[in-house]
């Protein structure tokens, strides 16, 4: 981008640097003012400091949570398995409903660009921008309470991420195998199966395993709106003010997530 051949004088350099510094300073100043404004509005105005009380009171509230409710542990096994299964089935269902979205959302294979491409993009954005709690609410009102609503919520919620990443993977494939199969007279389906699928399958599997790991975390809270699993136990403990029980449930969630993370780490390693 060297447009002018005239070399910059020292004055020019100093002036440019000053200008840059002013812009930077203004930017930081605006950020700082925003921080002050936000603190003023959220922390100072909106907080009921009398309810919170002194630091000792906060310490007292926190100390309620210390301890483990051993009597609860045998009752946790069922919900833990349920949470795990909701995450697994939800991810697989998400992958299945995601296949058309991937196909429509990748620019190089989308069947009819002006309609199918925006359609897939809208579906992805919708799925990613609505929180899993809200999805679960919608599905609970459609199919009733239970694990099924949770599975649907997880599936719809994971569509966005899987489809977006996979569509990018499809857009970045090597076009030569595709051309070779076209040249041999392969149909669109054959191009799909033999030209594109083998190239993107490992990538998609990696994405799905990653999303599965996130879905375990999500499925652990879906019980809050009546979709079963550990979240329901958590909510029940919370409502009966059994705070050591709450800690126990959180530890169970933590353990499940550690297991999921280790599995995902090693299976993604095995894929490569």
């Amino acid at each position, binding site marked *: 981008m060297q447009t002018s051949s005239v070399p910059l004088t020292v004055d020019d350099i100093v002036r440019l640097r000053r200008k840059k510094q002013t812009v930077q300073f203004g930017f930081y100043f605006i950020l700082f003012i*925003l*921080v002050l*404004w*936000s*603190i003023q*509005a*959220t*922390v100072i105005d*909106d*907080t*009921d400091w009398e*309810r*919170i009380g002194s630091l000792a009171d*906060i310490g007292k*509230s*926190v100390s309620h*949570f210390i301890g483990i409710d051993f009597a609860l542990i045998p009752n946790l096994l069922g919900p833990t*398995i*349920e949470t795990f*299964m*909701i995450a*697994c*089935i939800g991810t*697989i269902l998400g992958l299945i409903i995601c296949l058309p979205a991937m196909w429509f959302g990748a620019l190089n294979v989308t069947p009819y660009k002006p309609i199918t491409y925006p359609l897939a993009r809208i579906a992805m*954005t*919708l799925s*990613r*921008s*609505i*929180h899993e*709690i*809200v999805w679960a*609410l919608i599905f609970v*009102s*459609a*199919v009733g309470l*239970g*694990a*099924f609503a949770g*599975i*649907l919520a997880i599936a719809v919620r994971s569509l966005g991420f899987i489809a977006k990443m996979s569509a990018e993977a499809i857009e970045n494939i090597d076009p030569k195998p595709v051309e070779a199969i076209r040249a041999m007279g392969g149909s669109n389906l054959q191009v799909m199966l033999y030209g594109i699928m083998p190239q993107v399958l490992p990538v998609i599997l990696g994405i799905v395993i990653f999303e599965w790991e996130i879905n375990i*975390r*999500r499925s*652990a*809270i879906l019980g*809050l709106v009546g979709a*079963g699993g550990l979240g329901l136990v*958590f909510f029940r403990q*919370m409502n009966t003010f059994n705070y050591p029980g*709450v800690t126990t449930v*959180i530890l169970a*969630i*933590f353990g499940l*997530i*550690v297991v999921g*993370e280790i599995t995902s780490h090693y299976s993604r390693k095995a894929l490569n």
Partner: protein
Amino acid sequence: MANKTGEHNLPVHSSVGGDGVHREWSRFKFPRSLINYGILLGILLFFSYSVYYLNIPLERIMGMFGRLGDLMADRYFPPDMDYIVDLGYLDAIIETIQMAYLGSLFGLLISIVLGWFAAHNVSPSPKYIYPIARLLTMGCRSVHEMIWAILFVTILGFGLLPGVLALTMFSIGFSGKLFAEEIESIQMGQVEAIRAMGGNHLQVFVYGVFPQVRVAFTGIAIYTWDVAFRAATVVGFVGAGGMGWYLKRNVMQIETERVAAILISIVGLVVISEFVSAWARIRVSKAK
């Protein structure tokens, strides 16, 4: 060229040892193919067992779409747009933005330090501080933001402060890991130079590590804000302020048309924030 074709010259039919045994070529050899099928079968069995265990009414799946459609058309359809241009609701939107901004800011400030401690190559004490910092970021990440919000609401009462703290924890978990990974992939030359000059750990971080990761950190910070905003739209659901509270109230009162309007506003805001964050990240990576 001849060599190359020779390498890939896998025959479709091969006669082993000249005895003319007819064999189909397959991608995986015998033990490997068995293991692959075994894994696939195991996964399938697990899924069918889970469907049975969770009591999923498979026969209701087909009817579900019709009911969902009816539900949308009957109850959610004309979204009550007047409700979301109401002054109180607009106030809640601003509160949500402030909450996300503050939460991610506090979280990022903490996770810069935590990321430094949790990066194996420059951690002040790889033996003691490193595992603790790792555990802290992982703990923050594994507990969902809604659970953080519930916990803080029980301790501090309703309001925006518990929301800000919940988002802080969420941002620590989200960005702490990314920061640590970013620090672990730096070039060690500068770090060693400063260590050789007798710089202490803080000097190593400030002069050796931070200049290398500054740009990447800014990108991660913007992304964290974007994700935190998405989470902020619903933490109010358990009483932590912002738009989530309006959502909860209308869901409880079965004001479905208002719920539809709120959902539309959430999607709109998230899309805007996504565009802003994408634009800012491109600007940052260009500015270097």
